[in-house]
């Protein structure tokens, strides 16, 4: 593929996005959808397969599924920023979240995939929908009977915005994909082994998990009388081999005999277990920081809600011809 294909496809995408910003008749919309999908697919083919990979390499996530998810996500995002009705825009954003969550699954981030679904689609988007519906009740309908408010139908400075976005996309895409070997795309065997050994090392903090897995392996080896797991050399429970594909554990049988069993790769902690361990053992400060941010948001929301209640109270008092609440008006109003 010629490297310039990326820029051509990005420009085509920008033009399609511009044309999507005004309401169009159905056949024209279909043509726009097709050309937008084509532009996205062109970008994807322009960037993919930059690095040669060994033929037998497979991480269980087929290339076609990644492309399909990308097309779904881009369609949802494009409709989201161009749809004239805000509630539909929010619903299209849920489509984007679903596609991104499945993408997380394929990238072996199961915990993040479900956290994204629960927090984003379950909580944040519902809040958005509530506020959209709260703020849609009156006043905003056009006087010619349109379905949506004027400010949802007329984009602001679309050409300048699209040029800026195109420049951002082209510059980052150029930095990432066009320079030869700008990024070492394929992890080296050393990196892989180090990551696997790191995954086994986490298990040293989880003695109950080690004992459960070691007993299962021992049972499969016809050793049903394992009573405990012993620390080996270096005081470590789990001793991974050099490539990190398996790990040795010493177990004690009833008679006191020590046996070394080899845990298979499937016995290593799964993604959510490893993530929880890393969060608490490796990055405790970021966990605390997240808690502080949420607490501050809680305080802020309470302050805002109190102000809203006071405003509502003020309106009612004004309607009843009474003086407003609040220090200033209370003093002066009381004097007069």
């Amino acid at each position, binding site marked *: 593929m010629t490297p310039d294909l990326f820029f051509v496809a990005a420009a085509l995408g920008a033009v399609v996005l511009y044309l999507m910003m005004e309401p169009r008749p159905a056949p024209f919309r279909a043509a726009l959808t097709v050309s937008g999908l084509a532009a996205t697919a062109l970008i994807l083919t322009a*960037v993919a397969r930059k690095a040669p990979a060994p033929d037998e390499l497979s991480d269980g996530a087929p290339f076609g599924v990644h492309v399909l998810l990308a097309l779904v996500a881009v369609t949802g995002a494009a409709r989201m920023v161009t749809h004239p009705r805000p509630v539909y825009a929010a619903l299209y954003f849920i489509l984007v979240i679903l596609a991104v969550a499945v993408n997380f699954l394929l990238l072996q981030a199961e915990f993040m995939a479900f956290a994204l679904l629960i927090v984003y689609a379950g909580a944040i988007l519902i809040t958005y929908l509530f506020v959209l519906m709260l703020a849609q009740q009156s006043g905003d309908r056009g006087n010619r009977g349109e379905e949506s408010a004027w400010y949802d139908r007329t984009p602001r400075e679309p050409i300048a915005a699209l040029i800026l976005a195109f420049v951002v996309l082209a510059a*980052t895409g150029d930095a990432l*994909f066009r320079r030869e070997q700008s990024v070492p795309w394929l992890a080296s065997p050393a990196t892989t082994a180090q990551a696997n050994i790191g995954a086994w090392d986490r298990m040293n903090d989880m003695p109950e998990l080690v004992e459960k897995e070691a007993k299962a392996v021992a049972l499969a080896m016809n050793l049903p009388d394992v009573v405990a797991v012993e620390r080996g050399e270096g005081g470590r429970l789990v001793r991974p081999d050099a490539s990190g594909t398996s790990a040795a554990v010493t177990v004690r049988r009833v008679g006191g005999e020590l046996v070394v069993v080899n845990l298979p790769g499937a016995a290593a902690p*799964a993604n959510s277990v490893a993530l929880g361990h890393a969060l608490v053992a490796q990055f405790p400060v970021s966990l605390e920081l*997240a808690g502080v941010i949420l607490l501050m948001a809680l305080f802020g929301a309470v302050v805002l809600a109190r102000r809203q209640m006071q405003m509502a109270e003020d309106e009612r008092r004004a309607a009843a011809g009474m003086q407003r609440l609040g220090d200033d008006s209370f003093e002066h109003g009381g004097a007069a």
Partner: protein
Amino acid sequence: MNAATTMTSILASAPMTPAVPANVQVTLALALILFAIGLVGFLTRRNMILMFLSTELMFQAAALAFVAFGRMWMDLSGQLMVIFILTVAAAEAALALGLVVLLYRRKETLSNEAWAELKE
């Protein structure tokens, strides 16, 4: 490779296989495109709520890039950053939407141009 081993290799954490470069590249390209579309949405939308929704789209793009790079380097810190992004997004949604409702009660419109005097 049959379906059962495919599922195990998607979900197993060790021994981890290196990510297929083409898959990571497609995911990163998707992140770039989503970020650009979110930027367009933030700049062209006049509805304050949808401007915030567009920033959420840019958050999604950043999260996707974090997870893809984390997969490429087989490192969990990318996913930990996404936990952080989720926290910030939740806090932002709570506060920004509360402010938007307050503004809406003042002027009965969601258009950001009703508040143009704020920029002076």
